């Protein structure tokens, strides 16, 4: 890279490479970060909604929170944190030119994602079985703040689960590209970006967990 990390403030050095149609991982990474910003704000808007209603319905939110199982949430948190570790280690392994190890770590990440989704599915199914879902007669009988609490719970954890779900094929695709050699220690930005995305999914959960499970 023309960049070479020689200047710390100016990042224009890659022009030469780009003129030759070159590979500019710094651009790709910057683009990924900017994309993640939009994800942060997507959830960020929901966190604002959450904050406003927590302020207005503190007591009802606590009631709603009491209906959620802390052990389930805590286990899911641990699983996601672990998946982030395996993801980081996978990138480290690739950088040390150990693609097989990197792929194994990626599969571990996918395994964690699967476990997370399965637990989440059981959790939701349990809620549904108890009549806690938007529009359910049982929920409509509860205090108004609880309806909003569960409206937010399903919206936010649902959107988060959707992000986990999207992450799985991305990681599998990265694994495939490692095998085919398209991702190599020299051309690893796709994997790094997948990692950034995955860590963001983890990061959002880090906030979702206490806000929904731990306020009762």
């Amino acid at each position, binding site marked *: 890279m023309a960049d070479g990390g020689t200047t710390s403030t100016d990042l224009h050095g890659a022009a030469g490479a780009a003129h030759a149609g070159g590979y500019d991982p710094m651009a790709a990474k910057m683009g990924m970060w900017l994309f993640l910003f939009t994800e942060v704000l997507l959830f960020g808007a929901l966190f604002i909604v959450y904050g406003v209603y927590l302020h207005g319905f503190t*007591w009802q939110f606590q009631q709603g929170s009491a209906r959620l199982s802390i052990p389930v949430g805590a286990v899911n948190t641990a699983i996601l944190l672990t998946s982030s570790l395996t993801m980081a280690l996978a990138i480290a392994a690739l950088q040390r030119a150990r693609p097989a190890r990197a792929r194994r770590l990626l599969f571990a990440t996918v395994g964690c994602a699967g476990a997370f989704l399965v637990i989440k599915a059981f959790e939701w199914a349990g809620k549904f079985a108890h009549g806690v879902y938007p529009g359910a007669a049982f929920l409509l009988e509860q205090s108004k*703040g609880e309806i909003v609490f569960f409206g937010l719970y399903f919206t936010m954890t649902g959107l988060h689960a959707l992000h986990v779900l999207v992450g799985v094929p991305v990681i599998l695709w990265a694994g495939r590209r490692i095998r085919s050699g398209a991702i190599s220690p020299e051309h690893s930005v796709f994997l790094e970006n997948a990692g950034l995305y995955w860590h963001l999914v983890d990061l959002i959960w880090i906030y979702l967990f206490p806000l929904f499970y731990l306020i009762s």
Partner: protein
Amino acid sequence: MYSGASEIAREVDAAFYWIGGICVALLIGITAVMVYFVIRYRRARSPQAAHIEGSLPLEIGWIVVPTILVLFMFFKGYEGFKLMRTVPEDAQVVEVVGQRWFWTFIYPEQGITSDRLYAPVGKPMKLEMTAPVDDVVHSLYLPAFRVKEDCVPGRKSYLWFQPEQEGRYHIFCAEYCGKDHSRMITELVVLSPEKYQAWLQRKVEDRNKPVVMAQAMDPESAEIKERDGAALFKTYCVSCHGAEGLGGLVENARNFTSLADWKRSPKITDIYRTLELGIEGTQMRSFSNLPPWDRFALAHHVAAFYKGSDRPQASPEEVEQLNKDFRLGEKQEPRRTIPIEQAKKAYVEDAGGG
């Protein structure tokens, strides 16, 4: 612009003149300089441009001076706003409900309602506003008094004004609320204190006038004829049921020209019942705020849309049942049976819960 009709209006107008004056002066200045430069420095007269890169003092100048100007403008706007939000202690409270697509003004002390806002000269009026929780956002706008505030479903808002002379003033809905937004117009009627008291008195008596069932059931009776069912229909019903009573202007609004599929029956007694209770789960809400006689007049007007002669008639038992259910024959205490009970309850719960 309307002539200012109150102290708030004068305060707002003063802000308009200050801010607008500064703006117009600046706009004229900018435009004049621009036009002058274009003429003075056109290529024919000024073939060679000077090389000027900038000037720090000028830049600082046109950052600092506008900053001072806009802070002054902010302050001017703030002054009038403070006045708008400081309600005098002796203000008379009128509750306002905005609904699709009419206004209801409730005088809580007298327990009466009106589709127009009446106010006495010289008395500060505080409007406490809301909208039913199943309705949409409206906004009460009194241009002559320069005041406006949204009626948000399930929440309360307020504004106040003090009329200074008798007259009639427009009230608009300023927040887009759907089909008949542009027809959600009513009036503020400012009366002398004596006339205002007389108006209140008349409304209270009307509200409490016992119903004589025999007359109420007869469309040709003097009492029913005297009350203008057509005008009431135009105010409260037309926007959903249409001037021809064909309905369908909002979802499931009934067609009055047919006898088929009435939720209750098309008998006068059941139309009255619907006016009293509304129909759950639809936009048809209770009109129990209207005086009972008005409701009968309205019921007869609605019934008259069906031109056939086979309209089912209420039996004497049914008439008596209606009388008993709503105690129509008794002289009624001033009461606050108003369509927004529900909305208010929701609000109270909300305030308590928060």
